[in-house]
């Protein structure tokens, strides 16, 4: 008879465990008690809805020109006015928001994937660790936006290349974080038990080590999302990111910059959109971090009223 001792199974056999559903409910209640986190969650939901339903929210094609009406002020038909070639700014902002969502999601997905692979490999196999982490340190020696500019310059300006460049920038951040938790988790008795039972390395890593390293990655993911949205906007604003005809918040801001005096709405509306997105992601990320920090959760309300902070994005 094989005896497979999983931590989860052990926990299930212990009489004191709380059923998972009520645990989840408590977590939800904790999250909802923090007003800032709720505001963040609402902003993120709105962001998601705008990204999903962009064609419904804006019936006008963001690329259709109407030079006669260039730089016309916001009106009942064109809520955010028109840009320098008469395109509808409202639909450009909506579609730009959608693009930023696509970029953010893809960058988070790729950098978490790459970071998990490198972090797990480095943390679990000490022989790989030195080489992998030196490479990550080297990549982190470049300020993010500078490395992204250089990569996009080499690869050429396109949406895919912007995503690739930003993912390369954020892989080391995830890898460092994951490696840190793997170093702790791999020394725990349940990993030792799993290894003693002769379970193959890959299975130990995926089934036992990985799940216990995920929660800091989840929090970091929201901050990487925000950083990727900012990164795309900055690259496109400089004219080095996505091609100028593609509606992107950075592109709209770049056009607006030339007409700051005549048409400030070209700057103000997309600017407000970026700020709302970043603010939402930051608030949501803060709430998520506090939720996943067991110390904070048991401490109760006293510490909760002020936004707690920690080294955000500073995992080195």
């Amino acid at each position: 008879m094989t005896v497979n001792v999983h931590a989860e199974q052990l926990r299930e056999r212990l009489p004191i465990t709380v059923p998972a559903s009520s645990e989840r409910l408590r977590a939800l209640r904790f999250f909802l008690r923090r007003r800032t986190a709720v505001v963040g969650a609402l902003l993120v939901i709105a962001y998601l809805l705008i990204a999903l339903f962009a064609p419904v929210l804006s019936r006008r094609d963001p690329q259709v020109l109407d030079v006669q009406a260039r730089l016309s002020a916001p009106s009942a038909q064109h809520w955010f006015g028109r840009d320098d070639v008469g395109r509808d700014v409202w639909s450009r902002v909506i579609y730009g928001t959608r693009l930023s969502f696509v970029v953010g999601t893809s960058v988070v997905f790729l950098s978490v994937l790459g970071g998990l692979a490198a972090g797990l490999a480095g943390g679990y196999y000490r022989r790989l660790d030195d080489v992998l982490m030196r490479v990550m340190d080297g990549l982190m020696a470049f300020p993010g936006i500078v490395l992204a500019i250089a990569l996009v310059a080499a690869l050429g300006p396109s949406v895919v290349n912007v995503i690739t460049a930003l993912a390369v920038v954020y892989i080391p951040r995830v890898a460092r974080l994951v490696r840190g938790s793997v170093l702790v988790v791999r020394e725990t008795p349940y990993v030792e038990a799993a290894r003693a039972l002769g379970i193959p390395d890959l299975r130990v890593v995926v089934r036992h080590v990985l799940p216990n390293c995920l929660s800091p990655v989840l929090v970091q993911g929201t901050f990487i999302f925000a950083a990727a949205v900012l990164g795309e906007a900055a690259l496109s604003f400089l004219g080095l990111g996505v091609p100028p005809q593609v509606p992107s918040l950075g592109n709209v801001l770049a056009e607006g910059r030339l007409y700051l005096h005549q048409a400030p709405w070209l700057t103000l509306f997309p600017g407000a959109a970026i700020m709302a997105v970043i603010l939402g992601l930051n608030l949501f990320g803060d709430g998520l971090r506090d939720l996943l920090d067991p110390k904070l959760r048991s401490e109760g309300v006293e510490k909760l009223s002020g936004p707690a902070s920690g080294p955000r994005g500073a995992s080195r």
Partner: protein
Amino acid sequence: MKVYLLRRVLAVIPVMIVVATVTFVLLHLAPGDPASVMAGPDATEHDVAKIRRLLGLDELLPVQLVRWYSRLLVGDLGTSIFLRQPVLEAIVDRLEPTLLLALWGLLIAVLIGIPTGVVSARYRNTVVDQSCMGLALVGLSIPNFLLGLLMILFFGVWLGWLPVAGYVPLERGLWANLRSLIMPAVSLGLVQSALIARITRSSMLDVLREQYILAGRAKGLSEPNVIYKHALRNAIIPTLTVIGISFAVILGGAVVVENVFNIPGLGRLIYSAVLRRDYPVIQGVVLLVAVKYTLVNLVVDLAYIAIDPRIRYR
């Protein structure tokens, strides 16, 4: 202590090797032949061959890599074909505005960030704390280039108080120089001050829970004495780490913000180099910024030892 210092300084070497390799790879990432990309669509076969020879692209890849390392060791970053001058020279010419901008930005970040964090921690959970931290959250959500645009709109266009763009070199007077840099420096610094304020607040709160703070209060030290002399000194370590990170972000952000304000620094240089596909210049600027950042981190780590004697014995 000496061992720690030596280890820390030596740790810079592998980072530099990776940095040098990554910048080397940048040139070869480009789809197709970098020489013909640089030469442009109208170039003759002869021009392409000339550029290829100039960049050393006609050698084997390992040979190129060794050449690259050995040239870097003597500080040779190659030659810009478009600027017709050595890359290092082009960089040195444009260093002043970027460095001054980054320093002013960092100064603003620290001067706003640390006091805000300390005050928030001292009056925690009061209206003061909540409004400071609320503002910090909003501050964290503004992209630096957007803040720059908004300031140009407000102070430059509507109020007309400050020059809309441009740079006045230091040799034409400190005041004129400062006036041209104040808006870009605030765009860079304000966002970072929000980050610094948040970290300072949370590490102050941690320190204020310590026994020696209780002891200090018990023996009747005044509250400012406890906060500024005993707590702040110990709370400054995590803040220093963030200041190091902030400096990197400011250095990177300067590349973007210089383009908003038309400041002829490294940011303008790399921007025009990207548009012209001037790879040696791109490589040089990227390399230099990474080296600067690594050295700043080294200085931050060494500063820990000066501030916190406990680290010496670890």
